[in-house]
């Protein structure tokens, strides 16, 4: 099987906007995707959660677009859309019937150029309340909901940009001001800090003309501050543990390791390891903990790749009521150690690669996903062409690569262990009585 090559063009407007176009006329739909090279890692102390709050403000209108009209216009055009914030970036995306491409370009340009003209205290306060409810829904009111904050908190020192999650803290969200929004916009939301990808049923000549027209007049920011994070060792240099009482019926062990930075070939080896360890019913951890010993309810292992420092390799196991935390932890760490001692079998490697190949095929068949990946590789690797090299990089991994990467990173003095346990039963049942 071959995964089809993604053909694209890659150019820059005079104001620095990077434009990537990839044609695919199978279905009359087109994806527009913008990555801004700004994420929660750019937030200043006392301003955590700001990049994400700002993303919400981007839907509150600009000079020619009223509050919430961005959503209204795209949905009425038969499109789907959203934005998202991550540690390394913020992205905005629409997929629409192809004859509506110009609308999406105009909308994105209008807010890139004129957002501040529609900014109001009322809209900021409204979205601050919305985001605080997002934090409550997705984190504070969820079982095990604090794991991300705790894991990042232990894996990165307090002054490191990856120490805090994108959602930030309630106090910092409360402190965000109109001046903060304006300064953030002027600094980071400039054409020379963005990649615009257009993928699908598109006439590239026409699309380029629209991009020139709508984005061309927008001013670059010649003074985007260079991002800097103090270099960290790729390993932690000591185990960190925390026991977290929570309102949960089943204990759960989260384990997180520092891992190589995005682009490092050892990260590909670790992703193969994640598949061998916990990718589906044939995986080692699933077999041992869930199926054979029947001590875990579920297991998971995956990597979170970061661009400006160590990445995270992590996972969890949920402890069944009739098992002990200790038994699950012992078996979990035993498997995580074993994969760094004996090379995985050729069959395990081949199965992992076959599934990764199918995943690539599945992901790349959607124009929205293809556009997001082109923007990602252009932003983080300065080369959208990385989209066509990923599969080779996975296929090049050998059993010895996997063993060596696991031996280097999946070790006790590079790990954070969070143990969630049911909160004090006595207190709870008194209240329930």
């Amino acid at each position: 099987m071959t995964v089809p090559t993604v053909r694209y063009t890659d150019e820059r407007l005079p104001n620095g906007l990077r434009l990537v176009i990839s044609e695919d006329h199978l279905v009359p739909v087109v994806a527009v995707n913008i990555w801004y090279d700004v994420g929660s890692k750019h937030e200043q102390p006392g301003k955590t959660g700001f990049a994400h709050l700002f993303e919400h403000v981007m839907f509150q209108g600009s000079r020619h677009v009223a509050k919430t009209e961005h959503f209204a216009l795209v949905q009425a055009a038969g499109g789907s859309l959203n934005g998202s914030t991550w540690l390394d970036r913020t992205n905005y995306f629409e997929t629409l019937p192809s004859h509506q491409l110009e609308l999406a370009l105009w909308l994105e340009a209008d807010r890139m150029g004129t957002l501040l003209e529609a900014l109001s205290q009322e809209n900021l306060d409204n979205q601050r309340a919305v985001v605080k409810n997002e934090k409550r829904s997705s984190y504070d009111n969820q079982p095990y909901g604090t794991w991300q904050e705790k894991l990042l908190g232990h894996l990165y020192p307090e002054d490191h940009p990856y120490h805090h999650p994108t959602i930030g803290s309630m106090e910092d969200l409360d402190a965000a001001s109109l001046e903060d929004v304006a300064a953030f916009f002027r600094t980071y939301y400039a054409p020379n800090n963005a990649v615009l990808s257009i993928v699908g049923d598109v006439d590239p000549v026409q699309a380029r003309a629209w991009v020139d027209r709508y984005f061309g007049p927008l001013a670059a920011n010649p003074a985007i501050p260079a991002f800097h994070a103090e270099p960290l060792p790729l390993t932690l240099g000591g185990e960190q543990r925390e026991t977290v009482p929570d309102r949960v019926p089943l204990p759960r062990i989260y384990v997180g390791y520092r891992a190589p930075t995005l682009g490092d070939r050892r990260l590909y080896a670790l992703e193969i390891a994640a598949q061998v360890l916990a990718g589906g019913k044939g995986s080692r951890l699933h077999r041992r903990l869930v199926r054979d010993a029947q001590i875990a309810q579920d297991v998971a292992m995956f990597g979170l790749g970061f661009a400006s420092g160590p990445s995270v390799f992590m996972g969890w196991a949920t402890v069944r009521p009739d098992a002990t935390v200790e038994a699950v932890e012992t078996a979990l760490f035993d498997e995580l150690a074993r994969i760094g001692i004996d090379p995985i079998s050729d069959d395990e490697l081949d199965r992992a690669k076959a599934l990764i190949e199918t995943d690539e095929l599945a992901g790349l068949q959607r124009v929205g996903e293809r556009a997001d990946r082109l923007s990602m590789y252009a932003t983080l690797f300065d080369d959208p062409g990385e989209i066509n090299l990923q599969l080779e990089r996975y296929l090049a991994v050998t059993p010895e690569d996997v063993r060596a990467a696991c031996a280097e990173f999946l070790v006790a003095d590079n790990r954070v262990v969070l143990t969630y346990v049911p909160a004090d039963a006595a207190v709870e049942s008194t209240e329930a009585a």
Partner: protein
Amino acid sequence: MNAPDPVEAALGVRPVPGTPRPFTFPAAARGRLSGGLALVTVNLPGRPLVSASLYLPNGAVDEPADEGGATVLAARALTEGTLHRDAVALTEAAERLGATLRAEAGWDATVVGVDVPAERLGPALELLAELVLEPAFPQREVERLRDQRLNDLLQAKVDPARRAEEAFVETIYAPGTPYARVAGGRRETVETLDAGILRRAYGRRGDPDRGALIVGGDLAGLDVAGLVEPFFGELAAGAAASAGLPVVEDGLDRTRVRLVHRPRAVQSELRVGHLGLPRLSPDYHAVSVMAMILGGLFNSRLNMKLREEKGYTYGAGAGFDFRRFAGPFSARAAVNIDATVPALTDLLAELRRIREAAPSDAEMRAARDYLVGVFPLRFETPGPIVAALGGLVTFGLPADELDRYRPAVDAVTAGDVLTAARTHLHLERLAVIVVGDADVVGADLEKAGIGDVEVVREPEPLAEEA
């Protein structure tokens, strides 16, 4: 004279849409295997990842109440071993093909399928046939799946959205009727499930016309009928179940407010609604447009009021879950605890308002244009195309239903929406579910006068109970 502003010159005029490129739902070829099973194939050039799904007329709705959860668990057990291989061998065989086997049951059907690169479709279908035709239901694996489901139910008790869903369906449906439980079943019945019950649930095939094998993707050079005949040819379409149709019964005769106590919750999870209507209702399209305006679009009335105006929530919505029989209608939001009663008041006001007057032209356009315009986006890849064709089979809809969908939506008028709201939203008998801190919101909720408030206080779902 001032120089013209180049930004204004560029952005001052809104673009108008170009000419739409026509899109039609991909043509499907229909035939039958020798045993009677319907075969539907859709050739999608340029889509090398093929999606194949076998729709079997075994839904959770068809199982007896005292075996609640058996159908869902039986489907899960299909990948846990066959007469020839155990689960690990089965999984490994699929993985070598770069394929993932899926087997899931819902209220209406059991769907067993595989997604696989086209050149390995044959061996993948052979595996699929093995688990469909020769499942072993191994005792040990069945017991493990059952215990995992029981643990999952424990976890659902502390997940606000799942807890609200559970309380909601058991309030809007009469006790003991199918939809009054979640499809995976409740503790009391799941505890009693064993391999024999699962085998029986899997063998309980309903109307054979609700079964089909559907294959979509780049099928160039593949004789799909020839490929599947040796594996599925003998799969009898099955005899119609002799038992009568399941009876779905309304559980509400008045508005009931149920407050499920969640100590120290920072939000209240809200569900408001009642029994809705079946997929085959002639009002399907009008109700779909109405639900979009009320709580489907981002700019729906509920989301605009509760999120964009009041900031009570990250998102508010409403919709009908269309099933073979009358599934639920629900409006929903998770709101900060201080806003519990004000948010409920606003939510109920929007339910009243959409029954009082026809929506504006702008609202009608937004909803219709979205549903019509988003159609090609929904069917970009083989998976959703196969699933849509599966829906036709499951619900007994005509083959041209997907071609008629957009004209039918376009024909819905503001008057139709008003009629649909008045006919299908019942404000005098609502279930109002609040999962939140009863010590904080209980008194205000009583005072709000929505209905009698029943406070549900449960012991903590501790692991020791399992």
